[in-house]
């Protein structure tokens, strides 16, 4: 296995915070090339020197587990956090269902009967936004590890939910506006004002969910940007090595 490839594999396997991952990879990468150079000077062929350096210094599965234990933040070892990390989807669904149920209970039986269906779609989407934000935040702040692919997945999901929430809000508002226009000529002012209030509250909810969802995601961005920068440095480690390490162990 090529040293770059081996380091990249170690990067994928090692579940520690990105800054610690960077320092472990930098240290092992530098030691690998220094040891391989020493072994070459002592008469070994480049490929044999590499193989021997890798055998000594590249952590196997047991060493990776020991490294993770040495670098794990204390709080991530707590049982509830381990459970949440493992059952992230279940936790997200439970959060969404609880939020929707809480809103439904708040609305009461009358409210449920009278509500515009798009409002309930909006409530469900708001719940999913909260769940997506909470699980990403949990991994970022408590687990302190959210890989590039995961960050992208959470980000895309959040963006999709924001667009869907905005669309549901717009459709709900349109339905309420249409109902209000139908009422306009025929009904008394109190009923008309009731319609206006429903229109306003549907529009407010339709705007609040995507805007708050966006703001919530923005609250995660400083850490996301920091992780992105650290991972860019990690990626540079794999491409900035001397050519002999990218050339099957042969001298350039």
């Amino acid at each position, binding site marked *: 296995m090529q040293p770059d490839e081996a380091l990249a594999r170690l990067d994928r396997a090692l579940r520690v915070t990105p800054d610690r991952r960077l320092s472990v990879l930098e*240290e092992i990468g530098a030691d690998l090339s220094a040891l391989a150079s020493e072994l070459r000077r002592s008469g070994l062929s480049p490929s044999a020197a590499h193989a021997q350096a890798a055998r000594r210094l590249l952590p196997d599965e047991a060493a990776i587990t020991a490294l993770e234990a*040495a670098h794990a933040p204390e709080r991530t070892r707590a049982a509830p956090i381990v459970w949440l990390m493992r059952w992230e989807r279940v936790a997200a669904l439970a959060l969404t269902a609880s939020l929707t149920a809480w809103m439904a209970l708040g609305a009461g039986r009358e409210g449920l009967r009278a509500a515009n269906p798009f409002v309930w779609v909006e409530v469900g989407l708001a719940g999913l936004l909260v769940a997506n934000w909470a699980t990403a935040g949990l991994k970022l702040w408590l687990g302190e590890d959210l890989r590039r692919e995961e960050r992208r997945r959470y980000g895309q999901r959040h963006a999709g939910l924001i667009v869907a929430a905005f669309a549901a809000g717009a459709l709900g508002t349109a339905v309420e506006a249409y109902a209000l226009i139908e009422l306009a000529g025929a009904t008394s002012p109190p009923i008309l004002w009731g319609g206006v209030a429903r229109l306003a509250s549907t529009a407010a909810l339709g705007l609040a969910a995507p805007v708050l969802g966006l703001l919530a995601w923005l609250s995660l961005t400083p850490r996301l940007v920091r992780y992105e920068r650290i991972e860019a440095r990690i990626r540079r480690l794999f491409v900035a090595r001397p050519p002999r390490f990218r050339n099957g162990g042969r001298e350039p």
Partner: protein
Amino acid sequence: MQANLSKRINELLVLSVLQRGPAHGYQVALSVEEETGGTFSFQHGTLYPILHRLEADGLVSGVWSDGDRRRKTYAVTDAGREYLDGETGALEHEFGVLLHLLRDTSHAA
């Protein structure tokens, strides 16, 4: 017991090598193997968790040097020296007891 003993021996090997002067991780691995005639060696990256744990416990300190490439050098701390002295004495005593028992048993047989 076995895991604990092996952990202690590994820590003492690392500390004793570092007591002679600061070194990079791979140099520690080479020194341990050379100085013990190959009886003890660190393979498959087992050295790094030990070094990092010792560093977290304040028994060694790791310093990054900036050059073409960042490299980490380890040195033993005062607490590490103290730990090495204490643990060496304790291990000496434990092995003494063990060897005494084993010799007695083999003589009796």
